[in-house]
């Protein structure tokens, strides 16, 4: 599904990713854990197509297509979805208007027909019910006045609606209370399917109790330094990132 080869990325002369290699298979849930500053969020932004980063080398292939040659919107239409760590508030843009515009833009880019309004509303309402999102929120401007948990749920609602192939969850657990963590995780788990893969970025093992990964990668100094099964997350929880930080200091 996703293959990253020797990815080297810098921002303002500051090297963040140093020849990163990563493969995520079809249907796989891969977790990336690592200390602060190891480059996890940068990786998520570079996959989604944020322009601030300079890619010096390497490639990111989604089903063989090189994402680095595409604009962010083209990547979205190709099936990439980034659930933001800090979803942005956009005053003046109604949530429903936004959802419909995104959905139809992606469908158009893929040569599909636009969704009819009744079908669209049905799809949104269904997803909102599953994520316990109050319908009143959908009437407001996008993310404006939403709590941290509400914003994260709105990200998952967008994911459910857009049905992407490859989902990147950037510290989706940050700022969530226990109930919100459960609801968000259930929302993600409901989307697990063949033909869809996840890259779950987190500092903490607790998210991985809810979204159980197939593989866990440890990231340090802009590279994947260790790969294992879900038990690797438990080991990290017990031992901390000290051994990887020592590597950073060296």
């Amino acid at each position, binding site marked *: 599904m996703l293959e990253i080869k020797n990815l080297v990325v810098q921002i303002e002369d500051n090297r963040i990713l140093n020849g990163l290699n990563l493969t995520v298979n079809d249907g796989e849930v891969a977790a990336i854990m690592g200390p602060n500053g190891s480059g996890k969020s940068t990786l998520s932004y570079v996959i989604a197509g*944020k322009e601030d980063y300079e890619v010096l080398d390497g490639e990111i292939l989604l089903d063989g297509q090189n994402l680095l040659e595409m*604009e962010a919107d083209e*990547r979205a239409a190709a099936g990439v979805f980034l659930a933001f760590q800090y979803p942005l508030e956009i005053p003046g843009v109604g949530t429903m208007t936004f959802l419909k*515009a995104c959905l139809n*833009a992606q469908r158009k*880019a893929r040569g599909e027909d636009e969704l009819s309004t009744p079908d669209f509303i049905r799809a949104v309402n269904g997803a909102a019910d599953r994520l316990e999102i109050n319908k009143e929120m959908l009437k407001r401007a996008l993310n404006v006045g939403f709590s941290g948990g509400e914003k994260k749920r709105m990200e998952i609602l967008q994911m459910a609606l857009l049905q992407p192939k490859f989902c990147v969850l950037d510290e989706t657990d940050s700022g969530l209370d226990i109930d919100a963590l459960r609801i968000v995780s259930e929302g993600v788990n409901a989307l697990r399917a063949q033909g869809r893969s996840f890259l779950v970025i987190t500092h903490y093992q607790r998210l991985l109790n809810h979204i159980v990964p197939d593989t866990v990668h440890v990231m340090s100094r802009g590279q994947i330094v260790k790969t294992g099964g879900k038990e690797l997350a438990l080991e990290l929880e017990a031992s901390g990132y000290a051994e990887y930080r020592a590597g950073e200091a060296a």
Partner: protein
Amino acid sequence: MADVTNLRSPAEAGLSKLFEAGRKSFASETAIAREEAFRFFEATGLPSRRVEAFKYTDLRAAIAEAAPPAEAPSLDAAKAAVAGATGFAGIEAARLTFVNGHLVRELSDLDRIPAGVTVVPMSEALAQGDAGLELLAPVVQARENPVYQLNTAFLADGALISVAAGAKPETPVHLRFVGAGDAPFSTATRVLVQLGEGAEFSLLESHEGSNGVTCQPNDALDVVVGPQAVFRHSRLNKEGDAAVALSTLSLKVEREAQVESVNLVTGAVLSRHQIYVHIAGDDTNVVVNGAAMLRSGQLADSTLLADHAAVGGVGREQFKTVIDGDATGVFQGKIIVRQVAQKTDGKMKSDCLLLTDEGQMMNKPELEIFADDVACGHGATCGAPDDDLLFYLMARGLPRPVAESLLVQAFVGETVEAVTHEGARAALIGEIEAWLKARG
């Protein structure tokens, strides 16, 4: 000491000639103090950038020649011009149609004016010396303004609209100003709206003309909002691309009255909309919003003076400017809080979105506060569309131009969201969308 001779520009000399020529045909001289206004105007002339209030909008430079006052058009010409007018066209309203600044009765709904509202054409009012004329020019500062003085001096047509105490007509009145023909012309119209105690009234105002016509419309709207009355006003300037469009809104707001006024500018090579608000009674609530969406070569100036002379006035003034190409936006806003105007709560804001590096925005906010128990603030911002917001929208699949349009629409939309009249709000949003669509 050497004598100082004030050199007059060709346009100023032209205006004097036109005034002299028109003098004979002017009706009811005393009622509107036409002579006095022109004398004041002649003393100062067209304001240049040396005049502080016109520092960013140099009318002396912009008006090279004074266009002659427009004649009343033939009915056929008027009909043809009105056929192409789209501003607020879909809204159920009683229309007063002005073509080249002259009321066209055949294209107006004078026989369908809503109950509780009276309309007297300005030409009739002047001829008969209508008592309502006494209410003209309700804000003293406006009378000292050269644009307003020119309007008074050349006043050709308009209307007196009176809303009876307690009347709450559902149907708005639409002042539809349309330009006709392709020769240069000037207009000077004045509409007076007077709302009786407890009245509620919505006024729509649209200004349209053809591209390439060097017209110089000068329109004034004088409004006296009686005690506990509610006045709602939506204005649309989509003049042709060679128009120099000057306008003045003077509002006298009495006890516990409410005002909601919004002006959307997409047209004219140069426009200046002047708003004078006189808070005359206690506990008023006034919202004045403005939005300008400008392309290369355009300049739009919004100049506001809010004079609080009574207790507890709430004022909210919000202006948004979107600048494309090398366009220029100007906002000058001044809030005066007189010593008696304790508990005034005023907020004034001007925000600008620059879509290119070539555009410019001039903001000049001022507060003059003589009362000690007030909450007054102003702010101004200028910037490009937020890259993080653009990325967020693009990461959801919106192509860059669509994402940028959505952000621009959200930015400007805030000024029209507060419009109570649903049809007017939708029409203004439609104009914003049309501007964005034309931008591509």
